[in-house]
């Protein structure tokens, strides 16, 4: 997917409510309240922090290309929206497989470790112990040295090459794309290509190559997390953002953030819908920005809050009687968030809990 398509995709999700800067900060992974809220509200998780070193020049160029080709337009107040042509184009773009929210630029650390490991094996297997390391970061150098003293001890180059090859094979990505990906790796007598060189060789714009590279890393890392192998999981140590969720709910959350619907997650993970619902309740409990409004009307949330307060109950069966139009799943989600709010705000809670005692409607 090209950089321009990514930008178009983001703008289509922003729904005519934001300025172009929102997309720029999102791609750079700015940790500001506004960007985080936007990410949550417009479901932009795949793109969050996908290009931490994105230059505003490159961004502006792409933005202007979209403007001048009539795919996007700006309102008088500069908010940006998709034109009809833009909508048609956006609908024809394939699925995004970026997973920015989870990696947030840390995929580059994985690549730096991989590149230095490959270079080291390459030189050592040629009997060459002195070489200029391809990464100057002393922390990465130390980590890789440690790998050679531990999990790589005694492993042959053939063996390591096989693990890397199988890992890439398992991504299911096309050969051309993987060729572009590995062309950035360096070894004895064969250096990696710069973006400029790769661009001249493939006639693809540099920005498109960078986006593709990041997405390839995300796809590969997702695969490693699911089917860990010794070297690759060591190299990906610590690159995923920590989450308070349990393993299975975490996976569900990632897929949800990657844009999949509950049904799609259930299918892809081959899990029962009820299990996925359990995961969502867990996510709602742990995530204060959980987009409850996507699952039920805000008025319902208010109504359930009041009724639960009035009846001083959290029993699903009781509330279900008051709200026959809501599913159990919706009620659980609302209650999950209410529970959180109670914990966050003791005073409010204390005041509410007195009410039912006065009215005497205890059950």
């Amino acid at each position, binding site marked *: 997917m090209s950089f321009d398509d990514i930008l178009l995709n983001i703008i289509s999700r922003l729904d005519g409510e934001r300025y172009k800067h929102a997309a720029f900060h999102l791609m750079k992974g700015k940790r500001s309240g506004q960007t985080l809220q936007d990410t949550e509200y417009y479901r932009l998780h795949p793109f969050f922090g996908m290009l931490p*070193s994105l230059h505003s020049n490159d961004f502006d160029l792409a933005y202007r290309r979209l403007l001048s080709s009539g795919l996007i337009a700006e309102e008088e107040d500069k908010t940006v929206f998709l034109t009809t042509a833009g909508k048609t184009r956006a609908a024809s773009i394939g699925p995004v497989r970026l997973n920015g929210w989870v990696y947030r630029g840390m995929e580059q650390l994985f690549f730096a470790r991989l590149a230095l490991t*490959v270079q080291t*094996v*390459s030189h050592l*297997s*040629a009997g060459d*112990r*002195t070489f*200029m390391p*391809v*990464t*100057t970061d*002393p*922390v990465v150098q*130390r980590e890789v040295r440690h790998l050679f003293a531990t999990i790589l001890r005694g492993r042959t*180059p*053939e063996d*390591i*090459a096989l693990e*890397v*090859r199988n890992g*890439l094979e398992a991504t299911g990505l096309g*050969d*051309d794309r*993987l*060729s*572009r*990906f*590995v*062309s*950035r*790796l*360096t*070894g*004895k*007598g*064969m*250096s*990696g*290509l*710069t*973006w*400029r*060189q790769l661009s*001249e*060789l*493939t006639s693809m714009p540099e920005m498109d190559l960078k986006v593709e590279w990041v997405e390839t890393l995300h796809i590969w890392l997702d695969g490693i997390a699911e089917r860990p192998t010794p070297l690759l999981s060591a190299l990906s140590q610590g690159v995923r953002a920590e989450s308070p969720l349990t393993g299975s709910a975490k996976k569900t959350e990632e897929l949800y953030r990657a844009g999949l619907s509950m049904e799609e997650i259930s299918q892809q993970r081959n899990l029962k819908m009820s299990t996925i619902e359990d995961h969502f309740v867990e996510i709602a409990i742990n995530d204060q920005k959980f987009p409850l409004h996507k699952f039920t009307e805000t008025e319902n949330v208010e109504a359930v809050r009041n009724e639960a307060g009035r009846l001083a109950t959290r029993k699903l069966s009781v509330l279900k009687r008051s709200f026959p139009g809501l599913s159990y799943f919706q009620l659980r989600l609302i209650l999950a968030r209410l529970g959180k709010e109670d914990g966050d705000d003791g005073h409010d809670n204390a005041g509410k809990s007195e009410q039912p005692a006065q009215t005497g409607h205890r059950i």
Partner: protein
Amino acid sequence: MDMTMRESLNSLLKQVTGFDEFREGQEEVIHSVISGHDTIAVLPTGAGKSLCYQLPVHALGGTVLIVSPLLSLMEDQVAQLKMKGEKRVAALNSFLTPKERAEVLANLGRYRYLFTSPEMLVQPYISGRIKQLRLAYIVADEAHCISQWGFDFRPDYLRMREWLGTLEDRPPVLALTATASEKAIRDIADYLLMEQPQMFIHPPDRPNIAMEIVNLENREEKTEWILENLSRWKGPGIIYVQSRKRAEELSDLLRSRKVRTAAFHAGMENEDRILVQHQFLNGELEWICATNAFGMGINKSDIRWIIHDHLPSSAAQYIQEVGRAGRDGGQSLATLLYSRGDADTAVFIAVDDLPEPETVRFIGRCMAEGMDIVEVGERAGLSETALRVVSYWLERLGTEKAATQMGWLAEAKRKEIISMVHFAEGSGCIRSRALGLFGYSPATRPAQCCSECGIDHARILTGRTSEGNTPGLHGWRERINSLFGV
């Protein structure tokens, strides 16, 4: 030096390195350090500087403290010593994790070579621990960086002076550098509190590098000249240019003529810069078009040709860049492309980065009002380096004197460029003119001396034959297999 001394130095050399003979200039420096003198050694690049600080400690015992202003260079030297099998070596710098740092500090007395940075040195705890060591001598590496007159001035390095001042029984200090003007040498002796230092100053003369100045009208003529000559003769070589834009422009043009070239400048991603260095070392690239960001720490011995597309801002910088050619001793060439407009550009760029006295006063006022230094720098529009320089002098001299100091500095830079203009526009042997910038004259005149004495390109460079095709992308499985050598 008497015969017994000479013999014992030679056997020390043999025992430690396995070599039979010193290279020119090394023996005197090592002797001076062993005899306990403060020593300044100016040795041309490629003369084997590191042996000068590595050998004496084997005769003296104890620990050598090597203070280095460039972290990457430090890491490089540590790695090289380790590669030679030296186990008693450590670097104490900001890259260490707390655990590693604790480990180095716990074993401090066991190291033969202890590398550190000036910033570390002034931290009270570390300073205290180092003072307890039996220091054989202290080395100031890349000592020209301590001189504010040098193009590489690192204000942090001046902290070393403060630290040296706190030592009660100071061991001898060895200052090492490849290029330093007289003024810089005086600074080094002064800032490192040296007492009657022994000086071993070797003229930066490299007889295997022929020198050439080509007078051209303007940038377009320079471009034509480069394209024509690089189509005729082979590198490997470096073209030093003034700007990023020029680096990109020239490398694009050269690539379109099938000369394997890449640009190198600070605007590129760090990863890409490293890849370009690798390709150049490997011979995958023939030419680099670089701003002066290129060259530090790069160890390619067979560079045949250095071309300057612009007038360097100082003699020391020019000689250092030229000195990257012919480290293997092979015949090489240094070409300066000069046009009359270059002087103005050079002055503008060199002085542009220096704050005016007025700016210094402004910064002084802001800082007195308690404003954040970084914010002040942004308001005044200073580069990070310039800001460090100014804040260092403000702290020590107060606003007025610091402003005066900046005025002098700008004046000195202008003078350096004017002397480069005289060099470029003068007449007579270019090698003599270049050495004259440092107050020397050449000891010998090589057969391929300079374009004034007469040189024959065919005897210096290799003609270009047909160029091989640029390879396409490999299949990814094949590439992985060849990377792993399987």
